[in-house]
């Protein structure tokens, strides 16, 4: 690879959001390259199971569905923190984006009449979640990748971005490292689209892939883009004890029971009318309470029992879940309950951007889970984030296409950034000392899970902010055990950890400041929603070497007055 390469648009991230943006840019007639630290089909989008929302009205009970109802459900689900015109765009564009995926080949499940099948999902008034068995993300991701291959779009596979290049206040490209060789190169572009995904690995227990560190998001934050609403983190109630692989809501939908170590079906004490089918946040807090109060099993889990459904139902309706339980927990749910505990699942917050992906920094756009548009507010509905990648991936791509020709950087800015990146990596490699990145990482993860998790309170949160600041200090002293070039994961992990600590810091600081409970953010010391003081977005700005600077911005409220979120 030459030291400096140029494209009209550089897309960073090869998940659904990045690939959808790339298709849009290509179809607008521009040259686009997709840079990703893993081959695009390895991206975490492929792990999504349940489905993608669109008010197609295909379900027998869904004829009266409409995009307006979808928008309302999204806004209510967000606990009124979503920016309403943007949630409307999400719902309005949904049918076109989903149908387009079907036209491109995505293999959706079908109703007997041949139309795309839709299933009910939590928080939705109608069954509007389109699905492909329990592998929706896989189907969409492979289809979009194939569409990119068909178009001859350039891929920079296994390139890891270390920083954005700015010139005159504009992002003009990025510096990246080729993972197999360790080589560094600069990529210049008129516009750069970041689609770097979620950052669940900041927590110890997460359904997210190992690669979901958010390091590219942190790089954008360091380059001047603000982070919005990072304190809103969705925890899924049922993740497999041990690996925290997702055990889908469908298991409870089919009739699964939750039981504590005393053998009691404890949901009768938390949500007696709906029991296990209560909303995600309520079930997650119930399970965590059982564990915290000593009624969990050793190690901290409860049982998800489906034995009473019988082998036939389990084999026909939940084959994937049975496989996961057998492969990863060594239990066959036909005979033994599944050990589950809550785990981090989704980041509602991210890089602040408008409905076309424009961030605070000219030349830089964001889409997908790394962004905050904001359509999910304080709580995302299942099936809305795959949708977000398609709707806002396309819109960010269209906007980026419109920026082509608007001036890119001189070679000077790119080569200076490249030189600087080389120097800092050389300095890291020559650093002495005993501090190891994996020890710092593990500590960050346990601080975040214990103190910035499902239940939050002032003192532990303040402790977490301090602890993260201390870990940042320790990170500056990390030295490498491997100073080689090819596949140097020690180096990459160390670089990623720096970014993860930035995101952890913002998440903890935002959670400490927000003295109310809303959606996923539950303060035991402030258990009520407080619209008078807190109907606003948290905005964090990076301050070199210091605490994130936290400010606030109004929520855009147009059609729907905030009401109590009751189901």
């Amino acid at each position: 690879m030459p030291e400096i390469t140029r494209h009209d648009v550089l897309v960073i991230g090869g998940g659904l959001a990045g690939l959808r943006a790339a298709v849009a840019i290509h179809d607008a007639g521009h040259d686009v390259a997709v840079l990703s630290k893993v081959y695009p089909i390895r991206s975490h989008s492929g792990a999504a199971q349940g489905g993608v929302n669109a008010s197609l009205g295909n379900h027998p009970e869904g004829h009266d569905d409409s995009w307006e109802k979808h928008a309302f459900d999204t806004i209510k689900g967000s606990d009124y923190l979503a920016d309403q015109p943007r949630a409307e765009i999400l719902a309005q564009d949904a049918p076109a984006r989903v149908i387009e995926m079907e036209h491109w080949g995505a293999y959706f499940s079908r109703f007997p009449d041949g139309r795309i099948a839709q299933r009910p999902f939590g928080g939705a008034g109608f069954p509007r979640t389109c699905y492909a068995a329990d592998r929706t993300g896989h189907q969409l991701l492979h289809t979009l990748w194939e569409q990119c291959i068909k178009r001859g779009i350039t891929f920079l596979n296994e390139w890891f971005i270390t920083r954005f290049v700015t010139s005159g206040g504009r992002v003009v490209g990025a510096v990246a490292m080729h993972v197999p060789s360790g080589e560094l190169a600069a990529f210049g572009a008129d516009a750069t689209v970041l689609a770097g995904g979620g950052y669940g690995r900041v927590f110890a227990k997460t359904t997210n892939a190992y690669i979901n560190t958010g390091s590219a998001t942190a790089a954008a934050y360091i380059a001047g883009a603000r982070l919005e609403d990072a304190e809103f983190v969705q925890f899924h109630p049922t993740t497999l004890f041990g690996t925290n692989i997702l055990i889908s809501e469908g298991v409870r939908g089919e009739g699964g029971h939750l039981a504590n170590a005393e053998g009691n079906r404890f949901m009768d004490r938390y949500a007696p009318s709906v029991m296990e089918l209560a909303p995600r946040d309520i079930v997650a807090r119930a399970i965590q309470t059982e564990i915290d109060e000593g009624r969990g099993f050793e190690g901290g889990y409860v049982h998800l029992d489906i034995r009473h459904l019988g082998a036939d139902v389990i084999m026909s309706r939940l084959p994937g879940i049975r496989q996961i339980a057998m492969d990863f927990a060594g239990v066959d749910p036909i005979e033994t309950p599944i050990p589950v505990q809550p785990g981090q699942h989704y980041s509602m917050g991210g890089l602040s951007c408008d409905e076309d992906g424009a961030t605070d920094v000219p030349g830089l756009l964001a889409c997908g889970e790394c962004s905050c548009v904001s359509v999910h507010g304080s709580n995302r509905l299942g099936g809305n984030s795959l949708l977000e990648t398609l709707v806002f991936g396309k819109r960010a791509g269209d906007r980026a296409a419109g920026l082509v020709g608007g001036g890119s950087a001189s070679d000077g800015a790119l080569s200076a950034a490249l030189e600087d990146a080389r120097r800092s990596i050389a300095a890291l490699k020559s650093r002495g000392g005993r501090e190891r990145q994996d020890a710092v990482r593990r500590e960050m993860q346990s601080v975040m899970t214990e103190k910035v998790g499902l239940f939050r309170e002032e003192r532990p949160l303040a402790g977490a902010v301090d602890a993260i600041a201390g870990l940042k200090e320790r990170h500056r002293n990390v030295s490498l055990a491997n100073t080689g070039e090819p596949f140097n994961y020690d180096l990459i992990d160390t670089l990623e950890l720096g970014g993860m600590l930035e995101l952890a810091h913002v998440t903890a600081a935002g959670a400490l400041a927000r003295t109310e409970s809303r959606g996923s953010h539950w303060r035991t010391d402030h258990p009520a929603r407080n619209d008078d003081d807190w109907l606003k977005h948290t905005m964090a700005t990076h301050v070199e070497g210091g605490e994130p600077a936290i400010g606030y911005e109004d929520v855009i409220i147009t059609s729907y007055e905030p009401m109590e979120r009751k189901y």
Partner: protein
Amino acid sequence: MAKTARTFRIRRYDPAEDAAPSYREYVIDVPEGMTVLEALIRIQAEQDGTLAFRYACRGAVCGSCAMAIDGVVRLACRTQVRGLEGETVTVDPLPNLEVVKDLVVDMDSFFEKDFAVEPWLQPAEPAPERERPVSPDDWTEAEPYTNCILCASCHGVCPVAARDPEYLGPAALAKHYRFLADARDGAGEKRLKLVDSEAGVWGCDVVWSCSKICPKGVRPTKGILATRERVKP
């Protein structure tokens, strides 16, 4: 929790540095539930940062981590160490693809074969306003083939791929059949020409090793035989 020590015997090779591959041994404690992938990550973090292997999801969905474990091709993230017999676990890279380093093999050449079968829908008619309807009966034929995660396990056990680098291989041919059998596709004749050759469906030995090894239950051999039926005049 009981712990037991296990020895991992891992094939190491850096073509830029080493004259030939060699095995290196690492001893680690293996708690209940540890997968081979977790073991490799632990070895890399605690004993040898130069060990190279690929992973992403840790949940058997992304297709990154196929390798030969005790001589059997499997996904490292789905393989429980305690489920393996013997004191020593031997780990080799996926066969039939060039080694880039240690357990990392060249996937580009594998993906090129996939691209050669034009893996995108080519309908005969322009797109309608809504979805193209597919009856559940028509849907069933291609569906199993859509589950391929391109992990290349099948390629690693294919005897034809082992001797003929030109052979498209089970994954690409399964992908080919996925589109051939898709009720919405209209490029049947053209598609058949893409694989009507020794490098295509006629190269298969029909020993079903790919179909037995697939972690996602795809049966490339079945698709290959069905394609042969269609190619015959």
